């Protein structure tokens, strides 16, 4: 079974975000980049599927700048077999339609039985690449999956919806997006880390995928980021202490004076 896992490199969720001078991107000078956590679940699921079927190949694909190869190497260190890095100055890894189209070209060239993505890319949080990709490939898609059982020709996926679990059966090939809770991703072992460099990592650009500059530009910019703003600072809270008769008085006073709510 050919298992494709699409991964994005994203800013560390603990990174302190600053906005770049142009006001439309984040300043990446001091940012540590990691594999999108939702895609760690996807990689883990791919590896487990291969292990439980006793055969198969796990191939990682990422669209991103040069640094994205680090994320691919980390995925190889976890145990994936090989990786494809699509890097081209024409591309923008934060444009969902563009990324999904590029991925669909590469995945069609590669061939596939199963495609796994993260439910969202942290940071931009579009929730779009997986569904668009499935649509472009003309295959079934189940999103926000928390449990997945793959057999050679079909899959059973569980997803949490309001108050209940929904269980969906689909033939393969199909695409699934991984939600937190799908599994516990493994840590790469030292051996895995040492082997990662020896595994194939193929570099592709738009030309390799048969896309001209004109075609790429036509896909771009269906949605534009006009401006980024940091969320407003959380206003200071109030802790009221003492007897209820006291604290109620304090609270009322605060609501009147400081907030104007009363």
């Amino acid at each position: 079974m050919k298992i494709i896992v699409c991964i994005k490199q994203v800013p560390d969720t603990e990174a302190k975000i600053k906005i770049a001078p142009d006001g439309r991107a984040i300043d990446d000078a001091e940012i540590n980049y990691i594999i999108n956590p939702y895609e760690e679940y996807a990689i883990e699921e791919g590896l487990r599927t291969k292990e439980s079927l006793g055969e198969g190949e796990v191939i990682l694909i990422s669209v991103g700048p040069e640094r994205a190869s680090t994320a691919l190497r980390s995925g190889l260190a976890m145990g994936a077999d090989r990786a494809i890095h699509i890097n081209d100055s024409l591309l923008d890894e934060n444009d969902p339609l563009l990324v999904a189209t590029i991925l669909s070209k590469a995945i069609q060239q590669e061939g596939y039985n199963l495609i796994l993505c993260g439910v969202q890319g942290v940071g931009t949080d579009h929730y779009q690449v997986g569904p668009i990709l499935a649509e472009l490939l003309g295959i079934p898609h189940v999103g926000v999956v928390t449990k997945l059982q793959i057999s050679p020709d079909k899959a059973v996926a569980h997803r949490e919806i309001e108050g209940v679990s929904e269980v969906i059966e689909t033939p393969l090939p199909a695409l699934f997006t991984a939600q937190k809770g799908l599994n516990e991703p493994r840590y790469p072992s030292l051996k895995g880390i040492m082997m990662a460099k020896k595994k194939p990592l193929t570099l592709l650009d738009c030309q390799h995928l048969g896309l001209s500059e004109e075609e790429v530009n036509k896909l771009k910019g269906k949605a534009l980021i006009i401006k980024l703003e940091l969320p407003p600072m959380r206003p200071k809270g109030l802790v009221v202490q003492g007897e209820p008769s006291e604290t109620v008085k304090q609270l009322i006073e605060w609501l009147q004076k400081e907030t104007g709510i009363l």
Partner: protein
Amino acid sequence: MDFSFTEEQEMTRQMVREFAEREIAPVVMEYDESQQFPWEIIRKLAELGLLGILISPDYGGSGMGYIDLAIIIEELSRVDPSIGLTVAAHNSLCCNHIYLYGTEKQKKNYLPLLASGKKLGAWALTEAEAGSDASAIRATAILRDGQWVLNGSKLFITNANVGEVAVVLAVTDKSKGAKGISAFILEKGMAGFRVGKKENKLGVRASDTAELIMEDCSIPQENLLGKEGEGFINALALLDGGRVGIAAFSVGIAQGVMELCLKYSKERVQFGKPIAKFQAIQWILADMATQIDAARLLTYRAAYLRQQEQRSTKEASMAKLYASEMAVRATEKAVQIFGGYGFTKDYPVEKFYRDVKIATIGEGTSEIQHLVIARQILE
């Protein structure tokens, strides 16, 4: 000059850091209070290959080097010095002694078990009457009817209870002094070999420290490790690597407390502002950051030299001396910055303050490091 780590080294650091924060941090105090050995964590470390860091894959190890070893011990100690010390002693002393000086048969017999963590290893030099003056050990090994018979006892041995393989140093020819000491591989269950008193310690309480006792312990002749009479010389060479480990242990602890101090001093408000706004606190933090970097540079230089198989005795001692003394100061300042809270077990700096002190004692006290360095520069 290139100060950057390789991509693999960065990945290793990130992996160990994540592991330590997720799997070790939540249970650190529990193990410290109960003085239990953290088997569950050690087993997970074994799966990740952290118990065979320096061993070649031919013997089931991870095939990494001294820089990687330092990275791993630094990151583990940043969260739990006890685990850092356990991993350091197992890898850089026990495993490495067999790996560097063992026969092919010994390596095939022991390394796969040690590197996979199926068995933990101890390394026993110190005795009650021979600590700093390690060549004054009294344990003896006598060849009798094709068997080595060992007698004596070893004190303060890391992994003495939990380890199933021990490298033990003993005198084989009293007339030759340091050149009459040899190393042996002992296994738990051998007749006449047992564990004595377990120490109740100030710090690194989840690390196992106890006495090992040999009473007419008879072992096969082939369990001699390295050449007869070269045990002590090999041990000194081994300690060049071991001291890099203790330096990394110290850097990790200091880094851990500094991060805690940066966070705390920005949150703790006195006199109407976060205490990080006071110059007195800023001075402490700036000194900490500077000295940690200095220690880290010394540590990784020593690791690098050792990796290149260049002479590193002086550099390893300098790294160990400076880093351990620096880390003791850093933890003391950390308790100070935390004020009354730092004195309690509800905040993590109290434990670091206790754990760090082994760094200026184990694998040669600070005074002994001074002697080693002085001898090298006066040579």
